[in-house]
C-alpha cells in the first residue's frame, strides 16, 4: 500500500491538492502530560457549524486523509456529529485520543461510522510510570479498557508511545502490551517544544545512547539499512523538498488557524477570515515553505545526511529558522549512523556550544541555529 500512497501523494502534489489535513478539535484535555506542548485553555474553538463548513470545503478541495486530534477530542460533546459529517463526505478518518472517555456508546459509533483508525497514547505498560506522565491516576487502566472495547468491535487501534526520560526503558513493554491486545504499535522519540516557549521540554528527550539503541533494534525498526552511512549527496537530493508539510498536507488549530503542520506553528491564515482554498493557494507563508529545497538550507545543505535525514522543518523553525537545522533530527542521524551532522560539527567547533553527550538538551537562543 505504501507505494500506492506515494504515487497518489505525488499526484496530489502535482495537482496542488492538500491530500491530508490534521484538525485539532480542541486543546482542552483531561490529562496533564508532562511533555505536552499545548496550552489547554478553551479559546473560541470552531463551532460544529463552522467545522461542518470547513469539512465541506476540505472535501471540495480534494482532501482525503483527515486526522482529528487535540487536546482530548472526546471532551467535545459534538464529536460524534463532527465525525458523522466527515464520514458523510467520505473522508478517511483517524482519531487521536487518550481514550479515557471511550465507553460502550462511543466505541459503538466509532465502529458504526467506519473510522479507519484510533490512535491511543500509551507511555508505559506500568501504571506507576504511565500515570505519572499523564498525571491522572488510573489512566493506563482506563485507556487499556477502552482499547479492548474498540478491538472487540473490530476497530483498528494503534498504540502510540512518545518516549522520554521517564519511560525510556519501557517501550518494549508497551510493544508487548500492544501485541497482547492485538493492536499496532508506533514509537516517537521526539519531544515537541511547548508552543508558548520553543525552548522548553527539551530536557525530557531521551539520551544519545538510548536513541542509538532504538535505531539499532531491528525488532523495532525492521530495517538495518536505516543505520547505514548516507549515500553521497547529488543534485537530485539538493533539489528535493525536505518534507510534505504545506505541500500535500496542513494543520488547522481549534481556533481555525492554518499551519503547514501541527509541529510547524507558522500561521498561514484563519478559516474564519478566509476560505480554506484561498489560504492553501495564496498564503505567502505556505508559498515560502513550498519553495524551500534542500540546497536552500543554511547548514543542512552542506551535511552528508541531508538526503536521508528526518529533518523536521517545524522543529527547525521553533529552534530558530525554517531554513536551519533541527538538532533533535541531527541527533537521530547521528544515533543511526554514528556520523555527526554538519550542525553538530559546527557547534563542536564553537567553545561552549557543544557538550558532547547532551546536544539535544541544549537550549539554543533564537536566530542562532
Amino acid at each position, binding site marked *: 500500500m505504501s507505494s500506492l*500512497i506515494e504515487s497518489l501523494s505525488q499526484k496530489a502534489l502535482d495537482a496542488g491538492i492538500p491530500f491530508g489535513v490534521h484538525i485539532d478539535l480542541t486543546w482542552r484535555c483531561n490529562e496533564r502530560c508532562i511533555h505536552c506542548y499545548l496550552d489547554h485553555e478553551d479559546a473560541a474553538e470552531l463551532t460544529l457549524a463552522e467545522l461542518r463548513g470547513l469539512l465541506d470545503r476540505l472535501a471540495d478541495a480534494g482532501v482525503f486523509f483527515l486526522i482529528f486530534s487535540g487536546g482530548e477530542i472526546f471532551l467535545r460533546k459534538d464529536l460524534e456529529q463532527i465525525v458523522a459529517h466527515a464520514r458523510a463526505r467520505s473522508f478517511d478518518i483517524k482519531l487521536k485520543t487518550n481514550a479515557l472517555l471511550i465507553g460502550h456508546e462511543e466505541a459503538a459509533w466509532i465502529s458504526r461510522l467506519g473510522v479507519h483508525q484510533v490512535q491511543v497514547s500509551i507511555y508505559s505498560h506500568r501504571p506507576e510510570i504511565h500515570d505519572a506522565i499523564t498525571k491522572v491516576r488510573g489512566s493506563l487502566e482506563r485507556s487499556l479498557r477502552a482499547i479492548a472495547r474498540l478491538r472487540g468491535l473490530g476497530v483498528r487501534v494503534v498504540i502510540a508511545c512518545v518516549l522520554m526520560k521517564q519511560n525510556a526503558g519501557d517501550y518494549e513493554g508497551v510493544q508487548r502490551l500492544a501485541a497482547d491486545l492485538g493492536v499496532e504499535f508506533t514509537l516517537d522519540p521526539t519531544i515537541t517544544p511547548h508552543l508558548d516557549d520553543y525552548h522548553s521540554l527539551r530536557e525530557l528527550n531521551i539520551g544519545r545512547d538510548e536513541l542509538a539503541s532504538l535505531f539499532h533494534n531491528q525488532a523495532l525498526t525492521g530495517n538495518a539499512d536505516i543505520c547505514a552511512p548516507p549515500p553521497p549527496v547529488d543534485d537530485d537530493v539538493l533539489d528535493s523538498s525536505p518534507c510534505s508539510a504545506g505541500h500535500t498536507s496542513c494543520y488547522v488549530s481549534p481556533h481555525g488557524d492554518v499551519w503547514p503542520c501541527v509541529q510547524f506553528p507558522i500561521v498561514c491564515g484563519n478559516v474564519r477570515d478566509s476560505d480554506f482554498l484561498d489560504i492553501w493557494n495564496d498564503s505567502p507563508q505556505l508559498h515560502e515553505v513550498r519553495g524551500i529545497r534542500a540546497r536552500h538550507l543554511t547548514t543542512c545543505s552542506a551535511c552528508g545526511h541531508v538526503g536521508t535525514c528526518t529533518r523536521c522543518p517545524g522543529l527547525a523553525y521553533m529552534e530558530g529558522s525554517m531554513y536551519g537545522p533541527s538538532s533533535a533530527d541531527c541527533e537521530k542521524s547521528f544515533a543511526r549512523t554514528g556520523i555527526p551532522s554538519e550542525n553538530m560539527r559546527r557547534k563542536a567547533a564553537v567553545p561552549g556550544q557543544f557538550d558532547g553527550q547532551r546536544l539535544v538538551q541544549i537550549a539554543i537562543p533564537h536566530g542562532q541555529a
Partner: protein
Amino acid sequence: MSGCYPKRPANLASRVLKGEAIIMNPADSSLFNLNETATAIWLAADGRTTLREIVEREVCPRFEVDSESALRDAEELVQALAAQSILILAEEPGDE
C-alpha cells in the same frame, strides 16, 4: 450479470483525484486507485441502476466504446471490485 444492481458500500472512504477514484476500505486498510472508466462505473453504482444502464449511460458516450464489449469489460470489473469488498452486487434494486 448485466442486470445486477451494483452499489458502493457505505463504510468506504473515497475521493476522486484527477478523474480517478481513491478508495480506502477501513475494514482491512486496503487502498485502491481506479482508472477513469472504472471510476465512472463505481461512482454511478447507486444500487438502483443496472450495470447495463450504467455502461450505456456513463461509459459508452464518454469513452466511445460499443456497448457489448464495454459491458463484458464492466462485468469483469464489477466482479473484481466486489471480490475486494468495495462494491456490492445485488439482484434487486435497493435504496442508495
